[in-house]
């Protein structure tokens, strides 16, 4: 049975279901219970934005509030995973990778290869990503490319509540370390979500809109902007864009992207990350190499600029790729005859 559920509550539900199913699943992070040791309510916060609210009442001490020591508790999650647990650690904001990256880069990501295939590290690190929250330069970044660059890590970034639930369940059941990126501006977004548990396999992109004229590839929040752009292009120019939501960035579903470009002959990649060495450059380069003959125009990229995320709403709104910018990029790929 499905009902409308927010992105935030879909994550909460996925955690709840997996904790019921598997006693080795534990949660740790800063204020994921909230109020530990304080005189007020024990389950005061349930995460800084309430994503884990109510889980303490259901699962008690399998949720652990941590000190503000990201290296220690992310590392503890990695170590516990190597010892047979399935920890889900919340890093709060992915920007905080700066204080604990060694445990992700040199420990979790390396164990299996470095130990000759003898280690399994099923840890999930959940964190908020993305701009638009007026949270400025250190709480707003889309750092997905930093993680896709690292062999041994899987990187997930859902665009809606249905995918968030299914991909988080898959992340917890997966035997490799997973960086699970939650766009904070999607937390309130609702779609139909089944009540039961289901897993969405990694490496399977979702074609969220069919179209014959151009392929728009994106992930996370900007999938919605790409859909807005596609609707406007159809209405105003009769251009039918195919929109692909990658859902997972490592592994990435190259087949779906290539198949689409071979049909449309045009590619626009939309990425909230910075332009250099990004998901956008990765997809554009791969398509140029693998489907050069199918391309009718140079691939276009729509990304955040090569700047930190600004605070002032006026500037931040200019920072995030807009539907208008995406539509503009599409028009650059289309011959005047078709655009007319």
């Amino acid at each position, binding site marked *: 049975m499905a009902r409308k559920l927010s992105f935030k509550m879909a994550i909460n539900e996925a955690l709840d279901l997996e904790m019921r199913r598997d006693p080795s699943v534990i949660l740790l992070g800063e204020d994921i219970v909230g109020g530990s040791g304080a005189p007020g309510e024990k389950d005061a916060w349930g995460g800084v934005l309430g994503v884990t609210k109510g889980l303490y009442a259901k699962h008690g001490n399998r949720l652990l509030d941590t000190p503000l020591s990201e290296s220690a508790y*992310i*590392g*503890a999650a990695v*170590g516990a995973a190597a*010892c047979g*647990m399935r920890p889900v650690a919340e890093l709060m904001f992915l920007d905080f990778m700066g204080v604990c990256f060694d445990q992700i880069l040199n420990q979790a990501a390396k164990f299996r290869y470095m*130990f*000759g295939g003898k280690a399994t590290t099923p840890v999930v690190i959940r964190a908020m990503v993305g701009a638009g929250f007026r949270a400025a330069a250190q709480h707003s970044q889309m750092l997905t490319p930093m993680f896709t660059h690292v062999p*041994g890590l899987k990187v997930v970034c859902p665009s809606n509540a249905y995918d968030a639930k299914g991909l988080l369940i898959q992340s917890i059941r997966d035997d*490799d370390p997973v960086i699970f990126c939650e766009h904070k501006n999607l937390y309130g977004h609702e779609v139909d979500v089944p009540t039961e548990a289901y897993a969405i396999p990694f490496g399977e992109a979702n074609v969220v809109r069919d179209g014959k004229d151009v392929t728009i590839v994106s992930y996370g929040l900007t999938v919605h902007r790409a859909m807005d752009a596609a609707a406007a292009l159809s209405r105003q120019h009769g251009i039918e864009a195919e929109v692909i939501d990658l859902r997972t960035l490592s592994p990435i579903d190259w087949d779906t992207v290539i198949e689409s470009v071979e049909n449309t002959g045009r590619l626009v990649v939309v990425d909230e990350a910075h332009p250099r060495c990004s998901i956008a450059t990765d997809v554009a380069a791969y398509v140029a190499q693998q489907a050069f003959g199918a391309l009718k125009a140079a691939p276009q990229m729509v990304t955040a600029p090569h700047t930190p995320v600004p605070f002032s709403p006026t500037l931040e709104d200019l920072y995030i790729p807009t539907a208008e910018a995406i539509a503009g990029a599409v028009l650059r790929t289309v011959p005047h005859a078709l655009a007319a």
Partner: protein
Amino acid sequence: MPEPTPSALSNNPIPLPKDQLLEAYRTMRTIRDFEERLHVEFAKGDIPGFVHLYAGEEACATGVMMHLTDIDRIASTHRGHGHCIAKGVDVGEMMAEIYGKETGSCRGKGGSMHIADLSKGMMGANGILGAGAPLICGAGLAAKFRGDGGVGITFFGDGAANQGTVLESMNLAAIWNLPVIFVIENNGYAEATSVTYATAVDSYVDRATGFGLPAVSVDGTDFFAVHKAAGDLIAKARGGGGPAVLECKMSRFFGHFEGDSQTYKAKGENEFNRANRDCLKIFADRVTAAGVVSEAEIALLDREVASLIDDAVTSAKAAPLPAARDLLSDVYVSY
């Protein structure tokens, strides 16, 4: 490891039964010979990369590890051969790993700094200083959730004792009352920099006190001192009594890595340490003087270990190299 019964210790000034003494000597001798042999083989140029030798510090790994079984986890360091051997990792596989061979502990993909055997509770030597401390908190957390009575031990040097990861982990272990022991192997040098320069407090015991952790500092050249202190702290942690810090003060007989000119050491320092701070010599003198172990028994162990190391080197040299396909395998469980 069962505690010795009073009867077994009667008329015996040595606080351990004979089988454990022989086991301790065999382990320390194995580590020493492994490292001395690597020193020789490395100089020949047959070993890729670089190695960090544990010679001089054997009593620490051995005295701690004799209290552990395979359910107990350890997180080691770049200077990890001694920890591996004392935790029961196969010496032949270790040697093959250091030679970069397919038959190595990590199939030739880890090398000296990353030898691991999770089936033995050995969570890996580690090229990142201080990285084992958070990991061992996770091992302790897992043991606590499972209620299996396991403990976690992280080893690190006086240098890595200054890493934030170590300090964060001491606090985390304390507030969660984890069954974890932090073992500081204080050999006086962080690479080439003296502990007196790099560490603001005179004693790591004082630092542990700052985290509310009980701490003991022992002469790391005295196996019996390490064994006793580690035994007490591990038994307490295993029983739910929480984490602790153990500092072992000792000397490394070689440089930071093989090829280190060691010009930062005082003239004659290594010679002095080998003559006066050799944990193997101190141990052997004590048990033979007490008449508990004979010189002939020591000599027999020496011969057995020498043969074991010979075989390990011969096998490692003859072992196959990894196949080209191994470059791409085991990045993920599935991808």
